[in-house]
Structures are given as C-alpha cells and as structure tokens.
C-alpha cells in the first residue's frame, strides 16, 4: 500500500514538472503549427538564468527565501526577452511555410541557443547553493507520506502546474481574446479577413509559450545541476507527452503528462529495468489506438 502511495506521489510530482514544460510546446503548436524544438533551449535558458540570479542573491547575503523571487524573475526575463526576439526577429518571416521547414528552423535555433548557453555559462555543471549549503529546494521544509520524506518544493511544482493549466484553459475558453485565438487556430486566413490581428495573436502566444518553458527551467534549476545539453534531454520527454495527448491540445498535455509520470513512477518502483522503455511503450500503444493522440480534434480538410 505504502509503495502504491509512493508511486502516486512520485508520479504526480513528475507529471507536474513535465506538464509545465509540455504545455508551452503544445500551445505554440496548437496556435502556430510550429513544432518548436527550441523550446528545450528556452527551458535551459530559464534554468541557467535562475541559477545565476539566485547565486547572485545568495552571494549578496540576502535572506534565502528571496531566492524564490529570483527564480520567478529569471523566468520572466527569459520569457519576455527571448519570446519576442525569436518571434519578431525570425519566425514572423516564415509563417505560411511548410511545417517541416519550421521544424528545421527551430532545430537550427536550438543548436544556436545551445552554443549561446555554452558561450555565456561555460560547460561546467552549475547549481544553486547558499553559503551554508542551503538550496531553494530544501528551504520550504518537508512533508511525510507513507514513510517517505518529500520536500515541500514538490507541492510548489504541483501548484504551478495546476494554476498554469487552469489559467490557460480559462483564458482560451472564457475570454474574448481566447475566443479570437480559437478562431485563428481554426482558420488563419478567414480570421485575418474578419479583422483579427493574427500577427499580434502569434506574438502573444509565442511569448507565453517561451515564458512557460522558462518557468519550467527556473523551477527545475534548484533541484538539479544545470548543464549544457539539459534542453535536449527534456525536449524528448516533452514531445512524448504532447504526442500522447495529441499535438496542440491542452487537456491532452495534462493527461499525457499524468500518464507518463505515473507509468514512469510505477516502473521505477516495481520494475526498474523497464523504466527507460515504459514511456515509449505507452506512447506506441496510444499511437496504435489513436494515431493522432488522445485529444486530437477532427482535422478540417482544406483545399
């Protein structure tokens, strides 16, 4: 029983982490039809910025709790700078091109950003640590469940995942701009003809997506040693989640993250040998039964 509870808790924590990263990816694809490989780099940028800012914060001798503000600041900075720069400086010239071209472009961007990170931060792994070895990960204290100790930081992850998911769902379905966005998703040309500012919609969507990637990175930073190449590792998992859920679907990303998280946690606890394989096995099964993922809407055929 206690092991089952552990699987649930571990699975939900991991799902939350995955969801925060995957939701931005699926949002950008849903609206812009761009499979943004550079999402992994934005995640890494968020993580590196978070480490730099919190390390600076600790070095000033400010109260450790303030390091959380630095994590938030890092996500905001990375999201608000890189999102607009990439969208205005690069992607807007390529709208209407084939999806494959855009995958290649974002892949190129991914490579450039990886090298940019190397130039700025070097190749040594970096992690956040205060003068007495304290990390934001341990600062919030622990909770105990089923005989296992978990840092409360995990609750923060779950909260951020739930809040960002609900906020996006609300904004899409219950606000005017959300409805306009859905119209753009449905048909870009007709929306433009009806007077919707498609360029602005794309700009805002991409910036939000980039911000979510950076949030994922900033929240991950205190729990790991940030290192070049971390973006590549995470983008693979995020793709698995998004593909299981159905590209472009918000509920899909949530369900996909939950499935991947729980399956992985169950594998780790009951059959560690199949852990690596389990996630892809689930993905294969889902794709055999529903080739477009769990929540793919019917595609409108265009002439």
């Amino acid at each position, binding site marked *: 029983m*206690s*092991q089952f509870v*552990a*699987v649930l*808790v*571990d*699975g939900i*924590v*991991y799902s939350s*982490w995955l969801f925060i990263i995957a939701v931005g990816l699926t949002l950008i694809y849903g609206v812009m039809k761009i499979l943004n490989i550079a999402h992994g780099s934005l995640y890494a940028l968020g993580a590196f910025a978070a480490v730099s800012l919190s390390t600076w914060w600790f070095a000033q001798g400010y109260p450790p709790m303030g390091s959380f503000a630095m994590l938030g600041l890092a996500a905001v900075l990375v999201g608000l700078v890189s999102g607009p720069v990439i969208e205005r400086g690069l992607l807007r010239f390529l709208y209407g091109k084939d999806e494959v071209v855009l995958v290649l472009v974002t892949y190129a961007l991914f490579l450039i950003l990886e090298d940019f990170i*190397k130039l700025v931060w*070097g*190749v*040594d*792994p970096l*992690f956040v*640590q205060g003068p*007495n*070895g*304290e*990390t934001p*990960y*341990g600062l919030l204290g*622990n909770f105990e469940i089923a*005989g*296992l*100790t*978990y*840092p409360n930081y*995990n609750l923060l992850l779950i909260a951020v995942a739930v809040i960002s998911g609900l906020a996006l769902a609300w904004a899409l379905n219950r606000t005017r701009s959300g409805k306009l966005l859905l119209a753009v998703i449905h048909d870009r040309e007709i929306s433009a003809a009806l007077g919707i500012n498609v360029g602005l919609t794309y700009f805002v969507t991409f910036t939000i997506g980039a911000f979510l990637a950076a949030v994922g990175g900033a929240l*991950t930073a*205190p*729990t*790991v*040693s*940030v*290192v*070049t*190449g*971390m973006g590549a*590792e*995470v983008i693979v998992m995020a793709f698995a989640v998004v593909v299981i859920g159905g590209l472009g679907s918000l509920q899909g990303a949530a369900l996909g993250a939950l499935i991947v998280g729980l399956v*992985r*946690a169950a594998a*780790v*606890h009951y059959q*560690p*040998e199949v*852990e*690596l394989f389990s996630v892809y096995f689930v993905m294969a099964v889902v794709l055999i039964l529903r080739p477009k993922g769990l929540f793919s809407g019917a595609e409108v055929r265009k002439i």
Partner: protein
Amino acid sequence: MKTFATRALLGALALGLGLAPAAQAQQKDSIKIGFVTFLSGQAAGPFGVPARLAAEAIVESLNAGKAPAPYQIKGFGGTPLELVVIDEAGGATKQVSEYRTLVQRQGVDFVIGYIGSGDCLAIAPVAEELQKITVFFDCGTPRIFEEASYKYVFRTRAHATMDAVAASLYLLDNRPAAKRISGINQNYAWGQDSWADFETTFKVMKPEAEIGTSQMPKFGAGQYGAEISALINSNADVIHSSLWGGDLEAFMLQATPRDLFKKSQLILIAGEPNLHRMVGNVPDGTIVGARGPHAVFAPPSALNTWLRDTYKAKAGVVPNYPAYSVAQAILGVKAAYEKAIQKKIGSAIPMGAAKNVKEEMQKAYAPPTDEEVIAALEFLSFDTPSGKVSMSLGKGHQAIQGTAYGTTRTENGVVKVGNIKYYPAERINPPEGVPSLEWIKSGFKKTK
C-alpha cells in the same frame, strides 16, 4: 657494457666528424599528438576540460624540460610536442570520422584520448586498421582488451573492474556487518558494468548479501524523485552509485533533503571530482573513490607535486582524477618512446666495424619507428604522479595499478577524505587472460 661503450663512441664520432647536424636534421621538428577529450556536453565540465588543461600544462612543462626524473628530457626524447585537441562529443560514429581526419589529414604521430567507453570500443578497431598508436587515457570498460587483442591500441589506466572490487573490499573492511545493497547508476555501458561488477563482487565476498533495488535512470535524466523513493523503501545498508557530473549533483541535491543518507551509507565510485563543489550536500561517511590512486589519493612524490603545481598554475585549482589519467597516458608514451631510443642506440653496430659508419649512425639516431615504440610500451612499468603503472594485461596493452578509497567528513566548510586505504594492483585486478566477471565469480583466483 656494450650499450654504454657504443653510445659513447657514437657520440664522440658524431661530434668529431661533424655529423651531428646531419643526424639532427633527420629528427622531426615536433611530435604531433592528437588529443581527444570532451569539450562540450555533460562530460566536459568534470572530466573533459580538466583533461585538456592537464594535457596542455603537461606538454608545456615537458617541452620546457621542467618535469622531474625520469622525465626530465625535453618533449619526447628531445623532440618538442605539439597537441591537436579534438572534441569527443557527438557519439561513436562521429568520433570514428574525427579519428580518421586526425590520423589521415592532420598526420598526428600518436593519438591519446577518449573518456567514453563507447568511443573507445569504436575507435580501437579503426586505430588497428590505420596502424596508428592510440592510447586510451580514461575510459573504463574491461571489454576492450578482454574481447579482442590489438597491436596499436593501449590503455594506460586500469579498467573499471578494480573500482568495484576495491569498493567492496573497503566497504567490508570498514563495515563488516553491511549486508543489503541498492544501486543507482546510469543506463549505459558505464553504469551497467559498474553495478554488475559491484553486485557480483559483493555477493562473492558476502554470500548472505541481499539486493534492495537497482535503479538505472537514463543518462541526463535530471529528475530522480521516484528513484529516491524506491531507494528509501529498499532499506539498504549501502547505496552504490557510479553517477558522475551533473547527474550526480542533481541526485545529491534531491536526495539530501529527503533524508535518504540518514538511512543508507553512500558509495560514490567516481565521486572525487565533485566533492569540493558539493559542500553541504555530501553526507559525512560517504565512501568515495577516484578510479585509481589519483588526486587526494595520490601518494606523495616529486612527480605528484610537479603535476599539482603545473596544473594549478594553468587551471587555478588542484587537478582532479581525469588530470592524473592524462598524465599517465602522456608519461607512458614518453617512457616508451625514450626507452625505444635507448634500445636503438644501444644495439647499434659497434664502431669496430668501420663500414657504413654514417648510415648506421643515422639509423641509430633516427626517431624510433611505431614498431619500436610499441615493443617498448608493451609490458612497460613506469612512474606516474599516481605511483607505479604496469602494462600487465591484454598482452601488455592494458595497465593495472592499485587504487584507494576513503570516507568523507565535512570540516569548516571543506569536504575532507579520511581513513584512506590502498589496495595493491594484483589484489584487485584479474590475472592476464581471465575476463573480469569470470575472475570475480571464481572468487578472485590468482591464476588461470
């Protein structure tokens, strides 16, 4: 007798006849060494870049003739060295083509390199095909010389079996009651082999051993929440881990607040390079190794001091174990190269035969051929900053050396390694011709 007399005569003659310039003209301007190490990716920070800094510092020092005996001659046998550094990142297929470029276009004289076991396994047959002396300095898999034999390929460090055997010995020497073990290792050759060797060794040494859980997260996984829960639930006395670099740090950062190490002692097979970085997150009593008697485990000697000072002048910090591995490789080739020169001069035709004096002289003073260097390096025993290294296994191509383990203690914000115990090479390495795993299963039999 003959050696000394001949050399003296040849030397005198060379000076007398004014042949010295001619003999020198035959020497190359420099010896080019292709050096392959991770300059990007996960392994760059903890291993690759320190290795590169060490190689550069050592080559500069050797070229200046500043190394202590027996390596005081400049470069290799008086010829200065030149490094061509290549990034090891990108996987085995890419490395094979990089290797071909290095050998065929750049025309290097030796290749020293490779940290990844997969890269070593892929490069070895290609080195043989291109007939280029290639020395692996850091990769660990025992398979290279246990599953094949090579003429041009050498490895100047002991393979990974010794790390597992010594870790078991150290654990049982210090904590004879330890019985239940769990592991967390990366899911690729290094992590799998490390766990398999340790698990088998421990079971042989302690028949009533119990295995809790063996976790194999993906390389670079980053999130270890579920693995840590499983490790806590496994109630192990000891947790074995060969994690390294960023993965190791992520694991420690996530496991420490969860009190895993209050329950279980930790063994870090390759933990040494990370210790000084992780003050506050390395629990006291953690058993650490450096995959050989390197860095904090290196015995005091003039060579050790030389490496520490040379490296520190270049990098600003003290060398970690990959830096010591590099020193073993470069000094090993240097020892062999100079031994080959000595042998050649020693066996030159004595002056009594006044025939073909000039030709014989030129032959004796020409740089040693690959064949001669190979013959000299096989079964060579040489001094390194980490003590004596012997090329005893794999028909003289695979080194063995002793190793050491210690236990950590944090004092005044510094992680110190105490209770260091050394294990001699013969006790922890298999005999020639016996595959590692068979040797362990046989109960560490000394002979075939």
